[in-house]
């Protein structure tokens, strides 16, 4: 290692660029969150922890937090269940496997905004495909109960392929001999899955779980385009609330406080993620 050529200057541009879009903004957001900054009136004044005190008493914040937790829990658990099923299926041999895998990947590649518009159209209560197929008249995006679940369904459709790919990679790491040996010992079907495959796949499942949780927790475009946070803020997630405070009311101080909360939550999850990765890859 020590005999190598010096390479700091190769790495420097990347490190500088990354700091500019991560370290600098987060420090600025932290600074702004301690201020009252109204972009419209060019006002900036230091207010200490006032924004944080306001946050704790802000019902709309707690509502957004609840919505975010619900969205994250529901979509990630469904994606894992469905993703595991599809990964096990695609891991077997059948004709046109490559073609089917490509088809399964399509939702992942479609821009989130386009998927949201596609689903909005299918959810249309009068002339939408979904009500037509179900023979019902559900107001999917207009009712407080259905709107959030409709957003979850869209996210599950869009993101399950990603989960499938990672789990398939995990399945490939399980040696064929292990499965063979278990088969010879009489394990088949459910018990093979339950006793052999699932435990061996657990590290990968854990990584996918945390990775997806982090991603779902900061959800913005999927829900924002589908419902705009409505009806009556029932689908407003933390990122959507923060965005509205920042760019619709231009309160950069309080908006930054909300952004800091998202940052801290995701940061805590990323620590878990790093530990899980370390456990999987080894030191």
């Amino acid at each position, binding site marked *: 290692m020590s005999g190598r*050529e010096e390479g700091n200057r190769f790495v420097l541009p990347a*490190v500088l660029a990354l700091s500019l879009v991560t370290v600098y903004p987060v420090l600025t957001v932290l600074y702004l969150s301690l201020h009252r900054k109204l972009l419209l009136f060019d006002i900036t004044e230091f207010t200490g922890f006032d924004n944080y005190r306001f946050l704790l008493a802000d019902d709309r914040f707690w509502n957004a937090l609840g919505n975010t937790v619900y969205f994250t829990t529901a979509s990630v658990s469904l994606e894992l269940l469905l993703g595991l099923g599809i990964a096990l299926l695609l891991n077997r041999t*059948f004709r046109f496997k490559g073609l089917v895998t*490509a088809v399964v990947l399509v939702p*992942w590649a479609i821009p989130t905004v386009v998927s949201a518009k*596609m689903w909005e159209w299918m959810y249309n209560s009068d002339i939408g495909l979904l009500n037509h197929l179900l023979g019902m008249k559900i107001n999917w995006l207009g009712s407080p109960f259905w709107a959030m679940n409709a957003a979850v369904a869209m996210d599950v*459709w869009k993101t399950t392929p990603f989960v499938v790919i990672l789990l398939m990679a995990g399945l490939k790491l399980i040696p064929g001999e292990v499965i063979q040996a278990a088969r010879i010992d009489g394990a088949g079907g459910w018990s093979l899955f339950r006793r052999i495959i699932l435990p061996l796949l657990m590290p990968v499942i854990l990584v996918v779980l945390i*990775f997806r949780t982090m991603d779902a927790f*900061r959800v913005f475009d999927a829900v924002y385009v589908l419902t705009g946070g409505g009806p009556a803020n029932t689908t407003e997630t933390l990122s959507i609330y923060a965005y509205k405070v920042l760019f619709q009311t231009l309160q950069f101080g309080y908006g930054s406080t909300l952004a800091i909360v998202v940052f801290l939550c995701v940061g805590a999850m990323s620590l878990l993620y790093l530990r899980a990765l370390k456990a999987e890859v080894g030191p």
Partner: protein
Amino acid sequence: MRQAGKVFAVIAVAAWSIAPFLWQAVTSVKPDAELARLPPLLPVGPTLEHYRAVFTGASFLRIIANSAIVASSATLLSLAIGSLAAFGLAKLRVRSRGLILLFVLSASMFPPIATVSPLYLVIRALGLRDTVWALIMTYTTFTLPLTIWVLTNFFRGIPEEIYRASLVDGCTPFRSFVRVMLPLAAPGIATTGILAFIFSWNEFLFALTFTATDASRTIPVAIALFPGLHEVPWGDIAAASVVVTIPLVLLVFLFQRRIIEGLTAGAVKG
């Protein structure tokens, strides 16, 4: 029997994945009168009027051009800066290497909402609001963690002797990087390039915040803010969606293996 079950499951999975897109394609060729009712499911008198409407006027073409410029420039820049860093991290002596790799990994986890407002203030101060430059700069850096991470693994996989031999032949490290290492890493470059391109083509939050007019607006923003006079123009939206999604579907079918490889390397292998 079991075989039939498997075939049925495969067909169901494929249908669930592709059906919403197919429905969008069907919608895009239905005349407005047929869009206002259901059934029939399939168009009775298919039409291209929505495609004509979308492409009439300069606006949509301009937006597609914006997206193409932004996505390809960001991808190229990210590959240039990222491969340089990856080469350094894999083959050269770099101070606090582990720390830098950790920083790169954590940079990829930053929630966009926590960085968008300060970057907006920077962009505004630089006078870059509503220009493609704002998005090119942002996407270049946002795709860097993936580029660096995947390519570092790739460069590590290239045998040390090849690099040494190029030095013996009189190359400087930089020359060896350009002439010898980069060509050998071509598959990794392709993988990360495709992913960076798809990310930049699809990004919404920053595009929504930094752009204001057709001068810099990209496809996701245009589709989200699709103009309609009285009613939502579902047929036009469907036509636009199909047009901007087809390149991505093509990428998936052509480069399925690379995409899977890149996603896996980006997340699981860390």
